[in-house]
């Protein structure tokens, strides 16, 4: 497996190839456009000449004598009848023609100027410049030279050179043939090239005008045999055929002394074919097409863009030891684990080196064969392959397993099936941050999906509506160790995006902890046992005895999984932000107090254990380490699920039922608002509406109307909210932060409100009106997109149409936003990928130049920061002063609405709008 390094690459230099070198490295000259003769054998000196390499098995290469996979292929060449310009070099050619003399070929610079330019180039190195600086220097020198009107050496007046895209040069209106261009370039002396940024040893300018064309080996352009027996040639071969054909005709015509016009036409045609051979997407000329009308894929197209050689085959490759399937949730798994189906585990293998210590175990495993039976209903790993010391791979079958098991000895490698506790990488696209690929330990289990703990959904941004994920099995001990230390899920509980937990409870888990702890409900012994099954917890305290029965409080149960010396004080999500906080006497039970690892009071909800916001989670990860945090999260999931099952929880449309008098109240409020709007419109028409400073009269009206309608919607929501208490499941979810918001509820029960496009009331559609149901110029509430109904009462047809208009804007926005931000991220990463934080705290690139003197200017790792700050002063205070500190620190009032909140809101809207299967492809950006 390990191969020694026999040679090390010291440096690589790219250079322009000379016609001489093309001919020297050529295995054969290609002169005929035909490929195969009637018997199907390649024609000598044709495009499929056997000297160019072998593609058919069994044959030997006529140049090197090797067989198919051993022969690397050899270049041939075509001698062009007339020189043609290389499309990739036109910019350099223009620069060269402009900055050199048309008669003597010298650089249009005086000796002093040239010396100065050369000196500037040399200085770039001393002051640590890179190739970009060289290019700038060269460009500046060329610009200076091309401005000269007379040659400083021979006094010749210079003409203006223009480039007729893509390959035609003109000098003062008269056309320069490639031959003339080449002659000019030949005259430029070597010593005049360095100021233009050209090294004459590796690049003579005349080489940019082609006289010989390299023919790539057949291995680069293999022909494929179709089922019908027909041969189908590669696009490159087709293009070379065109070049050869025209080259031949051009030579014949020229040698026969054909009229200048015909020769020139053929010459131009040759130029076209050579140009499209290099780049078939050159602007200004039509792309060469296949007989079917499909544009040919020539050299540049092979390399460029997302599907090109670099991005598709070199930076990214297909891999073995990977699997992909649908994902589903399993709260009984630890956050570090992933459930892998039997079928996948039997295919995915881990190489094990045989040592005297493990040889017996492995022998036994080989005896199991490649598809072992289940033993006592349990999965038994088998072996697919054994690699012997001589490197031979032997597939294990039922027949040979005994034989191979006996012959097993140290030095062999056994490829055994995946089994529990193996380390694998788990990934979900789009891989936008480092938490998109984390190391899990395997749990092989029945059914055909990958399963993981729900707390790990936020970092992957996964849900279970059909999402698929990838799994990669690590193949070496080094990789496993590295993954376990750096990539394990528990090491990523804290996000570097904001200094807080990204892995944490979501949805039902939050509802569960809420039901467990809100107002400290009592649980019977049976219930307690149900909740605590499978949880590794502290010993249970003495029960409360009521009427001779044993009861435990929810707070006591939750305290069982807290660290013994935990001390915290904070406000829960259900906190209403009363003007003066009653603290311990909060009747909403929103003031959370943990002392000595006991939850004294308060409700555990999103602020306690939720992802993005969970304060307890944050504190445990910070103060007790990731191992403890993992344990806590595993326990919270199990306990929350236990609690929600014991208590029972459901929601339905009748959760939004409100009494008839409330509906009447809402209707009154809305009618009032609509009346107010029509009053405003009337005032506007009468001209008595008071204009706001800095706004036109029209704008004033819009602002006022929006204000009135916005207030009406809020009022409707408030009236509805008054009848939706904390005994309501939907409200519990919204308030505790499990799912949904009070706005969602008020839109279901009260009123949907004004629909908007680009932040304005709807106005487009018909002439001066939104729909033909209204009068032209109607500025009233209903005519411009105010939806008076609620989702529950149902929308009128016009309201429904308006709602769809508003909804579409949201969809378009997300679509545009994701694709644009995907491309932005790609460019950002391309710019930053080589940066590295060094031991001295500096950020440097691969050239070792400094980008930042002190990482982030403050040297703080954002993962370990407290929402971006190096130190959480409140936390330190309360640690030192105990309860006294609570008077000093303003609990829950300090930056509660931080970065994390905004991000979470963003994420939620995205997933609600079901825009996850978007293609992030932005195409060729190179």
């Amino acid at each position, binding site marked *: 497996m390990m191969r020694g390094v026999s040679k090390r690459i010291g440096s690589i230099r790219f250079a322009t190839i000379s016609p001489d070198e093309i001919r020297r490295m050529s295995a054969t000259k290609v002169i005929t456009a035909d490929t195969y003769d009637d018997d199907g054998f390649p024609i000598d000196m044709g495009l499929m000449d056997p000297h160019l390499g072998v593609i058919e098995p069994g044959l030997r290469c006529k140049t090197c004598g090797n067989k198919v996979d051993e022969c690397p292929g050899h270049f041939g060449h075509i001698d062009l009848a007339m020189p043609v310009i290389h499309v990739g070099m036109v910019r350099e050619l223009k620069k060269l023609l402009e900055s050199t003399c048309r008669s003597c070929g010298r650089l249009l610079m005086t000796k002093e100027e040239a010396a100065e330019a050369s000196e500037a180039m040399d*200085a770039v190195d001393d002051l640590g410049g890179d190739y970009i*600086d060289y290019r*700038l220097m060269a460009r*500046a020198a060329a*610009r200076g030279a091309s401005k000269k009107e007379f040659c400083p050496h021979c006094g010749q007046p210079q003409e203006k050179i223009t480039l007729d895209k893509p390959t035609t040069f003109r000098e003062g209106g008269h056309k320069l043939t490639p031959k003339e261009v080449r002659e000019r370039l030949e005259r430029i002396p070597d010593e005049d090239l360095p100021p233009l940024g050209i090294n004459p040893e590796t690049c003579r300018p005349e080489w940019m005008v082609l006289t010989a064309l390299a023919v790539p080996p057949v291995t680069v352009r293999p022909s494929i045999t179709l089922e019908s027996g027909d041969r189908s040639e590669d696009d490159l071969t087709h293009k070379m055929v065109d070049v050869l054909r025209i080259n031949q005709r051009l030579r014949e015509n020229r040698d026969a002394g054909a009229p200048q016009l015909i020769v020139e036409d053929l010459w131009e045609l040759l130029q076209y074919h050579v140009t499209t051979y290099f780049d078939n997407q050159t602007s200004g000329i039509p792309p060469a097409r296949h007989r079917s009308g499909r544009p040919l894929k020539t050299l540049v197209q092979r390399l460029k863009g997302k599907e090109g050689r670099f991005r598709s085959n070199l930076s990214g490759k297909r891999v073995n030891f990977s699997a992909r399937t649908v994902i589903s949730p399993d709260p009984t798994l630890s956050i570090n684990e992933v459930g892998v189906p039997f079928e996948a585990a039997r295919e995915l293998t881990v190489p094990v080196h045989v040592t005297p210590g493990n040889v017996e175990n492995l022998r036994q495993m080989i005896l199991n064969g490649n598809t072992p039976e289940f033993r006592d209903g349990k999965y038994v790993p088998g072996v697919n392959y054994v690699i012997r010391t001589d490197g031979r791979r032997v597939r294990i079958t039922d027949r040979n397993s005994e034989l191979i098991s006996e012959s097993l000895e140290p030095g062999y490698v056994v490829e055994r099936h995946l089994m529990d506790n193996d380390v694998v990488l788990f990934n979900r696209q789009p891989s936008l941050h480092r938490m998109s690929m984390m190391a899990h330990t395997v749990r092989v289990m029945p059914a055909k999906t990958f399963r993981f703990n729900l707390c790990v959904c936020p970092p992957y941004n996964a849900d279970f509506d059909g999402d698929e994920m990838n799994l990669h099995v690590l193949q070496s001990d080094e990789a496993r160790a590295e993954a376990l230390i750096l990539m394990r899920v528990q090491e990523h509980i804290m996000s570097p995006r904001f200094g807080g937990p990204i892995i944490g409870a979501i949805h039902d888990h939050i509802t569960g902890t809420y039901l467990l702890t809100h107002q400290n409900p009592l649980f019977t012994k049976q219930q307690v046992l149900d909740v605590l099954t499978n949880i590794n917890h502290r010993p249970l305290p003495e029960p409360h005895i009521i009427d001779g029965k044993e009861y435990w409080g929810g707070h006591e149960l939750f305290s069982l999984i807290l660290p013994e010396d935990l001390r915290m004080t904070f406000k829960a999500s259900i906190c209403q932000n009363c003007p003066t906080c009653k603290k311990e006497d909060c009747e909403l039970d929103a003031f959370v107090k943990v002392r000595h690892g006991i939850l004294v009071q308060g409700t555990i909800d999103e602020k306690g254990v939720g992802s993005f916001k969970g304060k307890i989670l944050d504190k445990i990860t910070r103060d007790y380490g990731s191992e403890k945090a993992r344990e806590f999260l595993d326990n919270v999931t199990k306990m929350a699920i236990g609690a929600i099952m014991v208590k029972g929880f459901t929601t339905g449309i009748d959760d939004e039922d409100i009494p008839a008098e409330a509906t009447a109240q809402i209707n009154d409020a809305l009618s009032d608002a609509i009346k107010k709007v029509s009053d405003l419109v009337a005032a506007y028409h009468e001209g008595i509406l008071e204009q706001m400073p800095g706004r036109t009269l029209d704008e004033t009206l819009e602002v006022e109307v929006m204000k009135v309608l916005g207030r009406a919607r809020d009022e409707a929501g408030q009236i509805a909210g008054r009848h939706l208490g904390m005994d309501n499941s939907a409200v519990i979810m919204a308030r505790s932060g499990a799912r949904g918001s009070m706005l969602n509820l008020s839109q279901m029960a009260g009123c949907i409100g004004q629909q908007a496009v680009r932040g304005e009331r709807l106005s487009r559609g018909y002439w001066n009106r939104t729909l033909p149901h209204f009068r032209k110029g109607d500025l009233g509430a209903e005519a411009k997109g105010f939806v008076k109904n609620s989702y529950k009462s149902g929308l009128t047809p016009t309201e429904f149409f308006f709602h769809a208009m508003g909804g579409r804007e949201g969809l378009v926005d997300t679509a545009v936003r994701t694709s644009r931000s995907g491309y932005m991220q790609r460019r950002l990463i391309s710019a930053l990928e080589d940066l590295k934080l060094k031991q001295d705290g500096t950020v440097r690139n691969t050239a070792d*130049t400094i980008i*930042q003197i002190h990482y982030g200017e403050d040297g*703080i790792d954002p993962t370990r920061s407290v929402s971006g700050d190096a130190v959480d002063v409140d936390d330190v205070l309360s640690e030192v002063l105990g309860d006294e500190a609570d008077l000093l620190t303003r609990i829950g009032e300090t930056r509660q609405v931080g970065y994390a909140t905004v991000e979470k809101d963003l994420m939620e809207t995205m997933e609600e709008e079901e825009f996850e299967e978007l293609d992030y492809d932005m195409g060729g950006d190179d």
Partner: protein
Amino acid sequence: MSDFNVLTHNLIPEHHLMSEDEAQQMLSELNITRDQLPKIRKGDACIKVLERIHGPIEEGRIIRIVRKSDTAESFEVYRLVIKDVKR
């Protein structure tokens, strides 16, 4: 050209020309060579202002820039003066 001083603009951070001694000290403190520093072109508007104060500044001199920082309140960076390229 008006005699507007860009350094007085609120979006431009403080620029100071470092003396050779200071520069040497800074380089040895950071244990780096000149060519590893970020660059500033001689034609930069700020360099032109500094030149009005200190006289001509040749390439290879080091400029100390004091920026306001969100994370560290104020932060110093150093830039090496390099040759200007006329565009």
